[in-house]
């Protein structure tokens, strides 16, 4: 076991947690300590070295902090709001919870049963080491459980705030959403930090279960200051005719890795997943997606786009695995990358593994620079090169942004993303966000 693994186990020991989660915690701890530590030879971690995390001094839990409100802009929407600061629930900043939403510690007997049935069961901890760690650490967490045929009237907005602490520290985040047959909900997870230099490590994990005909819009917005370490995952099981519409965005940081794993387990399930990553400076961001088509007649449409500036690095690994029984699968995967600097680097690896013979699948990946023809076109109309470059960069991701269903999210992201390309309002004045 590495020191890092050892310290992580000590952190689990230092927690207080509800007794009924003990089995899962023990199982997580067991997997965590017996796992071989990933190296560059570990396929899933081939491009993303964990060394900087491993060398970090993450021996304590982060303390809650006040005064963050003035430094974090929340998404402006009418929602059920749960705010965690450095992993600690902030009741003041949170709203009253409807019966469908509960923190693990407050769960009723019935809700405990739902949690016990699904928590840690969607995610494959053999494959996802840091999900095992999340199990070992599970204490606090949010359950969204929507009963059969019901529609959550308001979106659930989970805001996870990071602030720097006196010494490097760790925060854990856990969300479970279970939508019964025909239920519908919108879940927005927002990982934010103050603008100060961060020194923390966030391990976040979300599991989603969509039963027959259930529908969910899921957003995962990961925009933190660049010194943070963040390993996150979203894992979903889709049963018959369930629909998951996912949107994910990440700015880079010292180390940021987000895994999406979606399992089509019932016929007719549909996944639409869109992602944007925007590393710059020396930031790093890694998206690994894995979609398992286990049964016939399911559809996947996955589009990821990245813009890499400066000396940043990104990894996109998109795997779609179509099992032998998954006839009549429709699957599309596209990954496009725009490099705005010749020192930026991206590794893109779309992988289709197809074992069924009657399927329609397409995948493509591109890495390019700003389109010269488009640049010339804009300049020939009198637009300055600088402004033209920004308009084209924004346009590259705007195509995905325009498809964001929740207007509040779109309104939140538009101006912020534009400002990533320039702080000069003169250059941003012709960018519109809808």
């Amino acid at each position, binding site marked *: 076991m590495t020191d890092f693994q050892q310290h992580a186990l000590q952190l689990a020991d230092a927690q207080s947690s509800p007794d009924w989660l003990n089995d899962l915690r023990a199982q997580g701890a067991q997997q965590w300590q017996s796992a071989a530590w990933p190296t560059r030879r570990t396929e899933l971690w081939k491009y993303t070295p964990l060394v900087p995390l491993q060398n970090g001094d993450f021996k304590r839990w982060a303390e809650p902090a006040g005064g963050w409100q003035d430094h974090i802009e929340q998404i402006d929407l009418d929602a059920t709001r749960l705010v965690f600061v450095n992993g600690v629930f902030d009741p003041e900043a949170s709203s009253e919870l409807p019966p469908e939403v509960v923190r693990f510690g407050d769960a009723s007997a019935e809700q405990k049963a739902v949690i016990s049935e699904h928590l840690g069961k969607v995610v494959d901890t053999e494959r996802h080491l840091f999900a095992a760690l999340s199990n070992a650490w599970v204490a606090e967490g949010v359950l969204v459980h929507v009963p059969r045929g019901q529609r959550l009237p308001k979106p659930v907005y989970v805001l996870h705030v990071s602030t720097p602490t006196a010494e490097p520290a760790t925060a854990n985040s856990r969300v479970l959403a279970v939508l019964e047959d025909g239920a519908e909900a919108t879940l927005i997870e927002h990982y934010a930090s103050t603008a100060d230099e961060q020194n923390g490590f966030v391990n976040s994990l979300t599991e989603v279960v969509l039963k027959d005909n259930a529908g969910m819009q899921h957003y995962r917005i990961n925009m933190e200051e660049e010194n943070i370490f963040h390993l996150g995952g979203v894992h979903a099981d889709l049963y018959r005719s369930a629909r998951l519409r996912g949107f994910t965005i990440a700015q880079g940081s010292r180390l940021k890795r987000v895994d999406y794993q979606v399992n089509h387990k019932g016929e007719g399930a549909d996944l639409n997943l869109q992602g944007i990553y925007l590393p710059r400076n020396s930031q790093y961001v890694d998206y690994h997606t894995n979609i398992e088509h286990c049964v016939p007649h399911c559809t996947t449409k996955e589009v990821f786009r990245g813009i890499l500036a400066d000396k940043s690095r990104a990894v996109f690994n998109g795997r779609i695995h179509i099992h032998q029984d998954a006839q009549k699968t429709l699957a599309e995967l596209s990954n496009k990358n725009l490099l705005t600097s010749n020192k930026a680097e991206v590794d893109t690896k779309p992988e289709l593994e197809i074992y069924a013979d009657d399927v329609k699948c397409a995948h493509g990946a591109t890495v390019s620079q700003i*389109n*010269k*023809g*488009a640049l*010339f*076109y*804009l*300049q*020939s*109309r*009198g*637009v*300055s*090169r600088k*402004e033209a470059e920004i*308009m*084209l960069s*924004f*346009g*590259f*991701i*705007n*195509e995905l942004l*325009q498809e964001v269903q929740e207007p509040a999210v779109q309104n939140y992201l538009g101006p912020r993303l534009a400002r990533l390309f320039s702080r000069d309002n003169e250059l941003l*004045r*012709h*960018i*519109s966000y809808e």
Partner: protein
Amino acid sequence: MLSIKDLHASVEETNILKGLSLEVKPGEVHAIMGPNGSGKSTLGNVLTGREGYSVSQGEVTFNGKDLLDLGIEERAHEGLFLAFQYPVEIPGVSNMEFLKAAVDAKRHHQGLSDLSAVEFMKTARDVIKHVSLDQSFLKRGVNEGFSGGEKKRNEILQMMLLEPSLCILDETDSGLDIDALQVVANGVNAMRNDDRSFIVVTHYQRLLDYIIPDYVHVLSGGRIVKSGGKELAKELEARGYSWLEGEVA
């Protein structure tokens, strides 16, 4: 307005323009015809400053300034406009943003402030009617999924909004049906005045039935090999270009 003297230009080390000279005075309409590959688009690209084209000899003055010394956007600010043979599609950037950026850039150069969104919308909505495009084309991505004809109308829309002093139309008529052709011609005719000049590059006499040129030139092998009045276009239509080959030599 525009004076081109003995212009030699190359693309990727291949000489395309080989001593081209042309004088365009305010208010004049010049048609340039010529076989495929003779350098017509190259001329437009060199004049507008496209990357990859190098001028080895000759000079171009535009309104008294050394045109070749100006940056791409400066040429636009000075009143030069090229309607592209193949307009670029830019998904993700709305036509509206694009057009407003262009109009504001010109205003900025003139020392004026940006148009307000409302003012611009009003103007754009009005002008787009003249090119017979639906208002919805303002909201779509620049040329995204536009048909060939719609792209060309969008070029004319830009021309009408920017009110340039010299407009170069590069085969704007190619591939257009008669209705679209008339839209283009009406756009040009509506903008014709004593100060504004046009260079209309075309393959077909047809367009020149609607836009009556003052001069017609034949570009062949990178040079103007023959110039005349509007009747030259008719002659070319009837006889093709081969009879001129003798004059190249």
